[in-house]
């Protein structure tokens, strides 16, 4: 089961080390991880996707809660969250294929950021499934390099973690 977890932590050096250390020693596997400071600069938000059983999520949440640097934990499911991931793809593009790639970008609402004689660099912010689809469509042109942020997410509606 894929589980999205949002964790508010103290924005201090060494905190990420404590979180990831806990994952490795308790045998939890992180699929993606995104960290950044929040509206309160003393607090960072970590959004992560883990592949984990239901009981294990309980235990993981409790273990995370034991870390003094952890302030709040929220499990998010698809129904109640708005989530996005950003991807930058450098794709091979010759004068003859550029047009096709541009069409694909238009369909997926991706944006072209950079161009060279042999490549295009495009960006897309979307849900992970759409990002995967986009990558699949770009594959035949030859992907040179990919950078993905990992999912970030907040609760839908007016609810917040603060």
């Amino acid at each position, binding site marked *: 089961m894929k589980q999205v977890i949002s964790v508010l*932590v*103290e924005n201090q*050096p*060494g905190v990420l*080390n*404590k979180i990831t*250390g*806990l994952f490795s*020693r308790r045998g939890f596997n992180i699929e993606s991880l995104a960290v950044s400071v929040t509206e309160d600069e003393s607090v960072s938000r970590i959004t992560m996707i883990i592949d984990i059983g239901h*009981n294990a999520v*309980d*235990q993981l949440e*409790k*273990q995370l*809660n*034991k*870390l*003094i*640097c*952890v*302030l709040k934990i929220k499990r998010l499911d698809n129904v109640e969250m708005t989530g996005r991931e950003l991807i930058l793809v450098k794709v091979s593009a010759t004068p003859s294929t550029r047009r096709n790639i541009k069409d694909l970008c238009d369909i997926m609402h991706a944006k072209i950021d950079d161009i060279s004689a042999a490549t295009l660099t495009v960006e897309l912010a979307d849900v992970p499934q759409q990002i995967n689809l986009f990558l699949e469509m770009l594959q035949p042109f030859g992907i040179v390099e990919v950078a993905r942020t990992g999912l970030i997410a907040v609760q839908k509606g007016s609810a917040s973690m603060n």
Partner: protein
Amino acid sequence: MNMTGAQSMVRCLEEEDVSHIFGYPGATICPFYEALYHSESIRHILVRQEQNAAHMASGYARITGKAGVCVVTSGPGATNLITGIATAYMDSIPLIAITGQVQSYLLGRDIFQEIDITGAVSPFIKHTYLIKKAADIPRVFKEAFHIATTGRPGPVLIDVPIDMQEAEIDFSYPEEVNIRGYKPTVNGNLKQLKKVVETIGKAERPLICVGGGAFCAKAQEQVRRLCEETKIPMVTTMMGLGVLPTSHPLNIGMIGSFGHKTANMALSQTDLLILVGARVGDRAITAPEKISSHSKTIHIDIDPAEIGKNVSPTVPLVGDLRVVLESLLAEHPSSNCTQWSEYLQKEADAEKHTMPEARPSTIQPKRLMAEIGKQIFPDACVVADVGQNQIWAAKYLPMQQGRFLTTGGLGTMGYALPAAIGVKIAQPEKQTVVVCGDGAFQMTNNELSTMVEQGCDVKIVLLNNRTLGMVCELQRIAKRHKFGVALPDTPDFGKLADAFGVKSRRISQDEDMASAIAEMLAYDGPYLLECVVSEAENSKVNM
């Protein structure tokens, strides 16, 4: 008030009412030692190796209920402390470890005696601090003591770069702590409490299982009342030993892979297991899923993460044991399990009184332990090391009102002697007896020096089988080769003791046991009683 960071560290310790600290100085902690020299209320105990500073602080903490404090220098001083910190973490002992560190502006350059100690200990410590602003020292110390001693106790490390110790600060000690990510639950949930009472009332064969948490919460009295008022029989884990006297009729014994037969039988037949400050570690309960198949479980613990980690409870209850048990007792839980209780009491009583026949010219560990138990004062503290000696002491040395200390979680060999020194410093008026083997003793016998220097009247019962007995036994059980476990050329322990100025005696016959123990206990000063034991003795097999 203006002072240096180092002076403020000492002031913080004084504010926290610290009377003893166990340490070993070095270059990066020198400013602190200079400030400590001027303290009138704190006594420094110089250990012989840093790991033992943590063990002594652990023994001290377990007796006083306050945080034990140890202080070492950076680099190797700090890394030597690691095993002691891990030991305290696994046994939930409140410890404050202060480490010197190289200049903060040089951190990360791998300079002489620089090590990332906060990073190194992070998997097995409750919390760590690295001081980057000297002005933070008072707040950090206040928080560290709060974190170490509240909730589930544990070690906290404060790493203090030398320039932070030398910097000037305006000192004031905070009155309160406010750590937004740390709010341990103290009171039990009322609804859950009612469910506990209800579940107990319905059980036919309930069994209380007490762990080390009872001592962390200072809830011995509440545990006793729970047992006596409900008449529910009680077993303990190794860490829970001594919560009721061994002779108490409701005390059925110690569970676990090395535990008492009746206690384990009770565990396999109960229909309601009431876990009280016990974390269902594998040595205590090897197959928790087996127990859940025939039994409901009530799990009372201060650490929510322990609930459901090793066993899925029917009724979980999170909170401070002392507080929770008080609230529980106020609800007057009652149980109708007289028949079950009497059956277990009869079995346990027979087991308690079975002793192997004396064999002349040998010392049988079980008889030795029973004899020690018979002769020590009722409030004596017994500190057992790790290995066969630990199992024999745990199973056959009857406890009365005293404490039984050992490292049940990490199983750190060499723990007993330094821990006992900490115990003796905490309660000099009470008897302190170490039980250890010849293997572990040689890991920490350098602390005999500290013991003598500090005038600690610790009695050491050394079981010498010239072997690493437990490993040898495990090899024997698994039909493996006896390999790497022989210590045939052990030193002359009498001469060794003599070199440190410790009186000693060596016995090898059952006939000498009683008089030798009496002589040891009557002697005014530290004493080493070496007991020659056959390497063929087992700890696993029941008599």
